[in-house]
């Protein structure tokens, strides 16, 4: 009698590109490129973040990321990790665009090494310039609904607030502000950074985020490939729970078995 509620696949779209997986994974900190590729496969991710770095001139025959993770099959999202000024980030992404040939990028401009907290003044400045130059920046930012709005107005194609500091694995520290950002945004919102385990990813999705981006939680797990699977399941579970609409919380118990007919 009950037809399935969602006959269409549950997809999300950023800057005109549509994806099924809501999990974006990083490609840093893995023991080997083989392990990295296996984790990406297990995660089901369709987008991976990558860094832009100098080639090793003294050993140009070193194995390359592109030999293990096929950029034709998986969308490479170049990042600006390690950039502390708008200028550095813009320069990095211009190179990334030339290396990859696409405009979809991840912008992050960091404020300090200790917390890797975003510098929002520089981030906003970089967003404006990048948009003018035809980039489509997905932007790492503070979990501040006002800053998120300003980025969106500047042309960010996705808002990516931190759940907790990069690489900390502390889980989402401020559910209220993440939720406010989701409610106010007209572009996809993805929690970027801070996820430590699968329940954190589920929590982000239950808040209504469009996706989650993570690296360390998978790469530093004892078994990264297994954790990648867990994250895939966590993101999917959280998404389904969000779509299903959770029950209201009560202060006291409410029995699940009927009271009528008790012997």
């Amino acid at each position: 009698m009950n037809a399935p509620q969602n006959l269409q696949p549950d997809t999300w779209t950023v800057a005109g590109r549509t994806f099924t997986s809501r999990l974006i994974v990083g490609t840093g900190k893995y023991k080997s490129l083989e392990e990295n590729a296996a984790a990406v496969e297990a995660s089901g991710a369709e987008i991976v973040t990558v860094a832009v770095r100098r080639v090793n001139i003294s050993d140009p025959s070193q194995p390359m990321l592109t030999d293990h993770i096929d950029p034709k099959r998986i969308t490479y999202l170049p990042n600006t990790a390690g950039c502390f000024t708008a200028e550095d980030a813009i320069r990095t992404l211009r190179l990334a665009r030339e290396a990859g040939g696409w405009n979809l990028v991840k912008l992050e401009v960091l404020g300090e090494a200790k917390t890797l907290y975003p510098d929002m003044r520089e981030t906003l400045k970089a967003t404006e310039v990048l948009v003018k130059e035809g980039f489509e920046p997905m932007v790492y930012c503070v979990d501040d609904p006002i800053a998120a709005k300003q980025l969106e107005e500047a042309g960010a194609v996705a808002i990516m607030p931190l759940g907790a500091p990069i690489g900390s694995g502390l889980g989402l520290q401020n559910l209220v502000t993440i939720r406010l950002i989701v409610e106010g945004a007209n572009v996809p919102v993805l929690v970027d950074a801070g996820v430590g385990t699968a329940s954190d990813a589920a929590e982000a999705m239950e808040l209504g985020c469009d996706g989650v981006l993570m690296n360390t939680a998978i790469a530093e797990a004892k078994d990264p490939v297994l954790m990648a699977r867990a994250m895939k399941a966590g993101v999917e579970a959280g998404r389904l729970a969000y779509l299903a609409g959770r029950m209201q919380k009560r202060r006291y118990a409410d029995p699940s078995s009927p009271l009528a007919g008790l012997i």
Partner: protein
Amino acid sequence: MSDNPTLVIQVNGEPRRVADGLSISAMLGELGLDPRKVAVERNLEIVPRSSLDEVAVADGDAFEIVHFVGGG
């Protein structure tokens, strides 16, 4: 005059000597790099891949040659 004049350039922050008259593509080839897998910045300006064959390396040029590596 030497028969084989060389230029002094910077590649990723390191000084290097290369033969005069090379295109950027040819320089990449000498470094063992595949031009399709890297991006090149010359004196802070991007060199579009389509013009790597045409642009000649000049004395004193500073190049940044980058590619994608693992990152979060």
